[in-house]
Structure formats: C-alpha cells, structure tokens
C-alpha cells in the first residue's frame, strides 16, 4: 500500500524545468530508492516533498495533501528529513542539535543512542568540530528522534569512508524496520542492502520503477540509466 504518493510533480528553478511531471509511489513500511545520475533532480524531488522549493503537482502523505503547505507543517505531519550536506548546526553542541529536533512528546533518545552511542559521549561537543561521519550521525539522529511516518534521506553515505558507509547502511537497515524511507543514494551497494523498490530519474523524468533487486541485477540497465560510476560503486 502506498504511503507517499507523488503525481505530476513539476519544479522550476529559475529558467530551468528541473522536474518535468514525475509520478511515483512510496510503499508503506519499505525503503524506496530514488536513483539517477548527478543533476537529474533527485535532491530537488526531496526538497519539493519538504516544501523547500516551490512545486506544482500532487503530493499526498497517507491521503493528506502536502502541496502548498509550509515546510514546518509538512514536517509536523510526520516527515523526517536528512539533507544531502547534513546541515548540522555547527555552532550548537550535539545535544543542542538533537534538542532542537525534538517535536513529539517523547523524543526517542534511547533509539538514537542505541544506534549512535558516540553521540552520547560527544553531547557537549560543538557539531562543527565533528568529523563528516559523526555529523552524518547527528543528521540521521535528528530525523529518528521523532516517530515519523516517512524519512526522506538524501545521500547519507556521500563523502564517507568505506567503514562508515557500512555503518550507515546498518543504521538504514534498522531504520527501515521502523518507518518508511525514501532514499536518494549513489552507492548501489547500500541500495542493494536496504531498498525494496527503486525509482529512476533521468533529466527530470521518471524512466523506471520496479523492485530494486531486479534493477540492480540488470547490469546493462544499471549502466545505461545510472552511468559509468555507479557500476564501480556496485
């Protein structure tokens, strides 16, 4: 059953028509990977779902229209967001970054510290002094603190060392047991590990939808749709 439904979504940024009427569904309780080469509109799609960029079309979460709502109201309907560049607040401590993200009556610190015990140890450390991997933990922890209906996760392994990529993949597996995830990811190894479904974009259009494992098993299709680098990543 579909939890998040996107229909005929258009985004114009300046003179560019970034998303040209994309439509796809995100099944409830599963991880859907949003794939494509650089610059096809994956991040823009997530930002449009968050209301961070103006868009036209239909976006529904559990039957509730998200289109036209301000971002903070979309989030309060149960949408968690892990942005592409982490966007932790560098001048705030780890604890303050998490505290800021508290939304519900009972923030899930136990879960956060179970997944990221290091964050408890570094609670008083300024987030700007953390390593890239640690900042990514903070970014993901912020989204997990609340009981969201869906998580929008944008390239969580970007720029991370292989060991940390494995760690993030482990976390995503755990997260996928708890909530629905729409995952933008270039690392096909991670996609293979966590995603059930896949949506492929190319120049602002959806060119493929279907089971992720089927797509990844078809190497020529992967090479054709996702480009040279993705074969190496897989």
């Amino acid at each position, binding site marked *: 059953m579909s939890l998040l439904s996107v229909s005929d979504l258009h985004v114009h940024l300046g003179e560019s028509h970034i998303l040209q009427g994309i439509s796809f569904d995100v099944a409830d309780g599963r991880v859907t990977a949003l794939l494509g080469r650089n610059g096809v509109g994956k991040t823009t799609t997530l930002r449009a779902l968050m209301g961070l960029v103006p868009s036209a079309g239909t976006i529904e979460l559990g039957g509730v229209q998200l289109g036209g709502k301000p971002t903070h109201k979309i989030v309060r309907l149960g949408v968690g967001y892990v*942005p592409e560049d982490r*966007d932790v607040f560098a*001048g705030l401590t780890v604890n*303050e970054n998490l505290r*800021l993200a508290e939304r519900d009556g009972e923030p899930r610190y136990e879960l956060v510290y179970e997944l990221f015990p290091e964050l408890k140890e570094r609670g008083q450390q300024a987030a700007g002094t953390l390593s890239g991997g640690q900042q990514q933990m903070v970014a993901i922890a912020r989204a997990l603190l609340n009981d969201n209906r869906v998580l929008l996760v944008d390239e969580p392994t970007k720029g991370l060392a292989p060991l940390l990529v494995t760690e993030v993949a482990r976390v995503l597996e755990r997260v996928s047991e708890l909530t629905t995830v729409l995952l933008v990811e270039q690392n096909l190894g991670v996609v293979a590990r966590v995603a059930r479904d896949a949506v492929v974009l190319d120049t602002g259009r959806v060119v493929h939808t279907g089971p992720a494992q089927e797509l990844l098993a078809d190497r020529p299709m992967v090479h054709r749709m996702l480009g040279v680098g993705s074969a190496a990543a897989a």
Partner: protein
Amino acid sequence: MYFLIASGLSLIYGLMGVLNFAHGAFLTVGAYAMWFTESKLGGVPVLPRFLLGALAGLAVGGVFAALVELFLIRPLYRRHIEQVLVTVGLALATVALVTAIWGNDARTVAAPGWLGNTTTVVGAHIPNDRWVEIVTALVVLLALNAFLRRTRYGLIIRAGVENRAMVTALGIDVRRAFTLVFALGGIAAAIAGVLSNVYFGTIDPQRGTSLLIFAFIVVVIGGLGSLRGTAASAVVVGLVQQYANYYASSGLGDLSVVLLLGIVLLARPRGFSGSFA
C-alpha cells in the same frame, strides 16, 4: 550605547537577513515614549518618574518593533529590496511623525541629579550616567546571552542564524522567532533611546537616525549575527571614536570609525566573528 542599538540589529540581520533601516525608529519611539510618560507624571518624584518613563519607553519600543515585523516585514519575506525600502520609509515616516507632533526642538528629560555627578576612579572623573550605561550594556549582554544559551527560542535563533531553512525542516515555525527577535531588538534600541536621553540631556527626532549609521558600522565590524562580535566591536568603535576626537580633533572620531570599517572589510570581511557583510 552602540552595543545596545547594534545588538538587535545584528540578531535581526543574522536570523532574518533583514537590513532594518527602521531600527533607529525603535530608538526614537522608545526615547519619546519615555519623555512623554515623564511629562504626564508631573507630581511624581524624579527617580520613580524616570524609572516609569524608562519602563514605558522599553515597552513601547518592543511592541512597536513587534508590530513592524508582523505587518511590514512578514509580508515581504524573501523580497529583500522591498524590505529595505519599507524600513527606510518607516524610518523617514517616524521622524516626520514625531516632528509633526512634538516639533524639531530638543526637549529636556528629567533624570535623577546623581546621574549628572561624577565618580572619581584612578584620578579620572567619570560622569555617573556613563557608569549606568556601561552596567546596562553589560546586563543586556548577559541577559541576551542567557536567553540565547538557555531557552528554546534562544536555541532556535542561534540555529536560525546559521541555517534558517534547516530549522524549518525540523518542524519549527521560525516566524515566531522572527517576531521575538524584532521585539528584543526594539527593546534594546529603546534602552539605547532612554540612555541617550540621559547622555545628551535632551531628546530630538533625529537621534535614532544619527546613531543608526554607527550601529551598522558596529554590526559589520563585529560580524553579522554575532552578539559577542557586536559587543567587542562596540567597545572598539567607541574607543576609536572618542580617542580620535580627544587626541586629534573633534569630528575626526567619525572619520576614524569609517576608516576602521574600511580596514576591517578589506582585511577580514566577516568581521570579528559572524557572517560576511
């Protein structure tokens, strides 16, 4: 005094990206509210009259600033040029309105006599009102710092200065923080207005406008959005101005401050701390 008027300006720009050219109007409104309140309390002894006038000035300055944000700034989010034009217009309109009601002549403000006396420290005779200004600025700095460090709204403001969009993406309605920052800025400017009444001994419609340019200089040198930077640069700007006026020639103080601004912009554009100017 520079810190008081600049602190609100720094927070407003840092959080909202609004160059608030009406900030001087908050000072003027606060100053005149104080004077007006005092003028209506004729039979009351000087000290309580002064304190009640000061409180009224702060309250009116804060409310005025909050209303400006709600009705003038909020409808123009992301339209920076229009925001600048509106704030410039409001600054001009405020001066015109005050002049129309109370005229252009300077008016005296009642203050306790001991404020005009001096206290000798290490041989220097320092007027007591200067001590009051220093202590007030310190109290405001500590209070603002405590607010930013220990309250949820303070947390939102500190985060919003860094990345407003991400604060929104955490489900926080930053608009309330915007109004609060404007109100706090208005109160701080009104405090500067009240104290300027004492410092200059009189009040006039141009006071806010004349101090605003120095407030902008302090904010830019200190770093946009940084309270500590603003505090440090207020001290530096004040000292440079006064030393230049005293040791060189009266009037060179203002030029020295502008030269200092130029040097800082060339050598360290983000100021002592904070964002790029």
